[in-house]
């Protein structure tokens, strides 16, 4: 009886705890920086007010939605391909975005459109381009999750090769720009960039939110999903397309930030094993978002006055944290 109660209550406790953690991060992290902005200073100092509202708050919000969005895209890919290591990286979407940005940097195209830099738009186009190539490769023969995943890995490898080539021939300044972009960062976030990122992300959350029961079926296997009434082929295309749009939007604004799409879903699976995707996605969004907010706060305060790219922090914090979780729970990946 006790076990039954805890199995019902535990997901709720975890969800409320994560929501509290996210709220705390949203409130506290904008105050932290090279200059500590307390509520008292915020009311009295106009310059600090500008820094707080126009720089730190949009940055924290971008981190929340980028981290949360990446976590949910990880869940979608892991269920769709029934592979615990599937994420936007393994499917080549992040690499496609990076190649798009690298090509733009090498071409020296500057400027912005509707608040988004041309580099970001090229990254978005690169993400969508890579997914089109993956489809074309996968559908030349009978498509299944393995052929799609393999096509993604091949596209990612080819894109990485091109990026390394551009990095090598690009000259010192452009090579540095490429490296900065490829590591991923949320500096330079603004409300207009937040809106640009949110447009595809909200579409993704809306469609994925409704179709989560279908994702539950995908994780049980193609034959079971088919038997239960899921149109497996169409469902997979819809999920991959909306996820590619969301990843494209995130990567265009923040660059390819690693690890979150792997660690947030698995950390949640370990905290609340056995839950279905809608609740898992909600918890992972909160955990991924909070994690990126905290990682970004560390990134901009650990070595003042300079900032380090948040991608470095997510890898250095996320890797050991995930290992700790994995070995403390004495469990394997629950999928």
């Amino acid at each position, binding site marked *: 009886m006790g*076990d*039954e109660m805890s*199995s019902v209550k535990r997901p709720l406790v975890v969800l409320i705890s994560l929501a509290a953690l996210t709220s705390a991060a949203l409130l506290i992290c904008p105050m932290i920086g090279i200059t500590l902005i307390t509520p008292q200073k915020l009311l009295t100092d106009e310059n600090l007010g500008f820094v707080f509202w126009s720089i730190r708050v949009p940055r924290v919000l971008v981190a929340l939605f980028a981290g949360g969005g990446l976590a949910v895209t990880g869940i979608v890919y892991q269920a769709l391909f*029934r592979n615990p290591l599937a994420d936007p990286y393994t499917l080549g979407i992040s690499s496609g975005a990076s190649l798009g940005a690298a090509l733009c940097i090498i071409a020296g195209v500057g400027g912005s459109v509707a608040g988004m830099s041309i580099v970001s738009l090229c990254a978005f186009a690169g993400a969508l381009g890579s997914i089109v190539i993956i489809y074309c490769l996968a559908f030349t023969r009978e498509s299944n999750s393995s052929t799609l995943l393999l096509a993604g890995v091949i596209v990612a490898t080819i894109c990485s090769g091109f990026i390394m080539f551009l990095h090598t021939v690009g000259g010192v300044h452009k090579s540095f720009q490429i490296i900065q972009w490829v590591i991923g960062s949320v500096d330079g976030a603004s409300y207009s960039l937040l809106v640009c990122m949110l447009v595809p992300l909200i579409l993704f959350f809306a469609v994925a939110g*409704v179709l*989560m*029961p*279908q994702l*539950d*079926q995908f*994780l*049980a*296997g*193609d*034959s*079971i999903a*088919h*038997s*239960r*009434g*899921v*149109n497996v082929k169409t469902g997979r295309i819809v999920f991959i397309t909306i996820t590619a749009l969301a990843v494209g939007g995130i990567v265009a604004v923040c660059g390819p930030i690693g690890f979150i799409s792997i660690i947030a879903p698995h950390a949640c*699976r370990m905290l609340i*094993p*056995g*839950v*279905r995707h*809608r609740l898992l996605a909600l918890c992972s969004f909160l955990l991924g978002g909070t994690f990126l907010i905290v990682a970004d706060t560390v990134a901009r305060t650990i070595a003042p006055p300079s900032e380090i790219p948040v991608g470095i922090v997510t890898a250095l914090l996320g890797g050991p944290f995930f290992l700790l979780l994995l070995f403390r729970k004495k469990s394997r990946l*629950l*999928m």
Partner: protein
Amino acid sequence: MNKASSIIQIENLHAAYGRSEALAGITLKIGKNQRWAIVGPNGAGKSTLIKIMAGLLKPSSGSVLLNGCDIRQYSSRKRAHVISYMPQKPDGLIPYTVYDFVMLGRYSLMGLMGVPSKEDREVVAEAIEICDIHHLENRIMSTLSGGELQRALLAGAVAQSAPVLLLDEPTTFLDPAHERLFFDALCRLDVKRELTTVMITHDINSALYQCSHIAALKDGQLLYGGSTGEFKKGCPELLEQIFGTRFMQFNCSELSAEAYGSWGMKCLQ
């Protein structure tokens, strides 16, 4: 059997993997409330046939009629209302609790948001009761033993409330005790619902004593399709023709008579 009483009608079905022919002109009528066993040696086309019936594979020619309508004309959801398929084993580890997995069986009957109704919860509770897996409700599927997993998979298929149940080698990995539990669940299901079951099995005695009809395949062709009573009359010669090896009839002592009746078939090699 007249056409009105048949729920599945297979007409001149051909299927191939590349140039290799898997099914060569199968014609079969499966009536309502019958339990069919598909038997045959490895590579005979049993799995291909059941997967075509489930809509998982497409035939190269011929058709499978479901209530008189070609299965290819059914939408995914409509098909799920009529046919439920249980694979031999899942494609990978299933990370849900047993209760949630059984609830997944209600997918085609739920609304777009997939929120279970009171009726969904009642049907799931009944499926869990039929399959005798109350004690496993909160266990994660990937932690179940082979026998427990098969009964949980069956409960998921039962929760779908489809009148046709297709089972792909449901007892292959089960020990005799768990096999018995599995068939007990099927019997309880027959009592509760009017169900047509088609299962692939390699256990000839299970086919002879648990099923009302037998379809015997060899090299993609149907060697026998009819009642188990008629099939028994042709044994062991019919079995030797199907499997290419000698069989003998043995009389059971009181120990196995309860499970299988008074006699069984034993392979001599």
